[in-house]
């Protein structure tokens, strides 16, 4: 057997994808050299395909990623066909994403949709960015790039025909989120006084929204790729939607996504000044950072609800798992983040009153 041939992924999908590609590209043949499962993604399965196309306009060697559903999925995330449409819209807006190439809409042949995209270089690992060797200047340069990518994404505004499956917020994006999180907590059926306290605060302090744009919904350290100290691709678009652009910034900066480096507000990597400069360099207007603390609290709330839902998969017996069980015991940490961050905002407000 060829030493290059390594089929540690799912051979059925690889063979299916080869036949699919042959048809899509009008090739004479498609040979898969390797198929490896990529880490990350509790919801999606990502396979790295190294393949060779003979004949047709795509003739040559290609490194692609095939993204499909894994057995467990969250009800709040997009399906693969929808995610493909979002990825195309983001790519069209100039956001650094793995170029989306082909979508397979399943009609029973395989049992699930998938799409193929170019493989992006670099690594999405959070730890090297948070604890690693980046100098202050290198951190700032990376944050400037992150801000610019978000600003490009936020130029996409409704309506967009290819994204008509994304619901518009009911009321302002902030009010809409509060209602959504209450519904999700109610559906689980275990009362959460601390989360209710924070949700009431979020409701009473909801900003009057100025705009609604396409948002990534999971833009945080660990979901973007870095290659040679620079941003190479933004990944994981299954939570994209129409919302307040500040929600993406709040999630990126929320204390729960700093990987322990709380002193570095933006994803554990650095300060907000460079991020805001990068954003403004594309949007042409300054970021109103006074809105950021509110949206950081909203981000922590989002994480609390997701953690509850994950823990419930274990508690309900649907998917017994040590990791999901321990996620349930992480809730007090998230509750503490919520209370302390709200208290900080209130103290700051009282100081200026």
């Amino acid at each position: 057997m060829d030493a290059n041939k390594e089929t540690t992924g799912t051979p059925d999908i690889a063979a299916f994808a080869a036949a699919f590609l042959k048809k899509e590209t009008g090739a004479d043949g498609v040979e898969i050299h390797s198929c490896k499962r990529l880490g990350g993604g509790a919801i999606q399965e990502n396979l790295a395909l190294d393949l060779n196309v003979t004949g047709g306009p795509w003739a040559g060697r290609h490194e692609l990623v095939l993204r499909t559903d894994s057995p467990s999925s969250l009800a709040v995330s997009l399906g693969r066909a929808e995610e493909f449409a979002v990825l195309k819209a983001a790519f069209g807006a100039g956001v650094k994403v793995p170029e989306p190439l082909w979508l397979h809409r399943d009609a029973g042949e395989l049992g699930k949709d998938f799409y193929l995209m170019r493989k992006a270089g670099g690594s999405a690992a959070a730890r090297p960015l948070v604890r690693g060797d980046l100098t202050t200047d290198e951190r700032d340069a990376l944050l400037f790039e992150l801000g610019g990518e978000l600003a490009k994404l936020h130029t996409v505004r409704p309506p967009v025909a290819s994204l008509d499956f994304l619901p518009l917020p009911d009321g302002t994006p902030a009010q809409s989120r509060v209602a959504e999180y209450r519904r999700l907590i109610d559906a689980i059926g275990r009362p959460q006084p601390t989360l209710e306290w924070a949700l009431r605060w979020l409701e009473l302090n909801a900003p009057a929204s100025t705009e609604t744009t396409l948002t990534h919904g999971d833009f945080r350290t660990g979901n973007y790729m870095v290659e040679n100290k620079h941003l190479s691709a933004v990944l994981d678009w299954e939570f994209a939607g129409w919302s307040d652009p500040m929600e993406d910034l709040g999630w990126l900066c929320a204390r729960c996504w700093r990987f322990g480096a709380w002193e570095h507000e933006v994803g554990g990597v650095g300060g907000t000044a460079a991020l805001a400069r990068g954003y403004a360099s594309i949007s042409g207007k300054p970021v109103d950072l006074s809105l950021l603390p509110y949206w950081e609290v909203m981000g922590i709330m989002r994480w609390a609800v997701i953690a509850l839902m994950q823990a419930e998969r274990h508690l309900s017996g649907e998917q017994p798992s040590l990791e999901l069980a321990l996620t349930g015991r992480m809730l007090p940490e998230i509750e503490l983040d919520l209370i302390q961050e709200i208290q900080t905002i209130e103290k700051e407000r009282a100081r200026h009153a």
Partner: protein
Amino acid sequence: MRSLPTAAELLKIAREGLLNELLPHLPKEHHYTALMAANALAISMREIQADDGQHKAEAALLHELYGSAAPDEGMDALAGHLAHDLRAGRFDARLDAVGELLLAEVTARLRVSNPKYLKQAGLN
């Protein structure tokens, strides 16, 4: 008569065996699961040994918010009521004070589930 060693002692020695004797022989891809198991044992150990801090924090919160109407069963019995009242805006006039009471209750739970996190947050 109490059986010895106690449950807490059993959890402690099981955790040490897992971390000191098994972990070094496990392939890297299984380290995460082993560390999670060690964490689960540590949480269980702390929960068994916990003082009545959480009970006190819950009692203080319920007494402050509901006075003599507060039931003796503690937070579990009243959590739904409190959640509903908060959502309905019944405590809007003193959200700050309720936040302080909730902070004490959350702190007590964190002492069991992750005391290191409390330290990082400047609480003990």
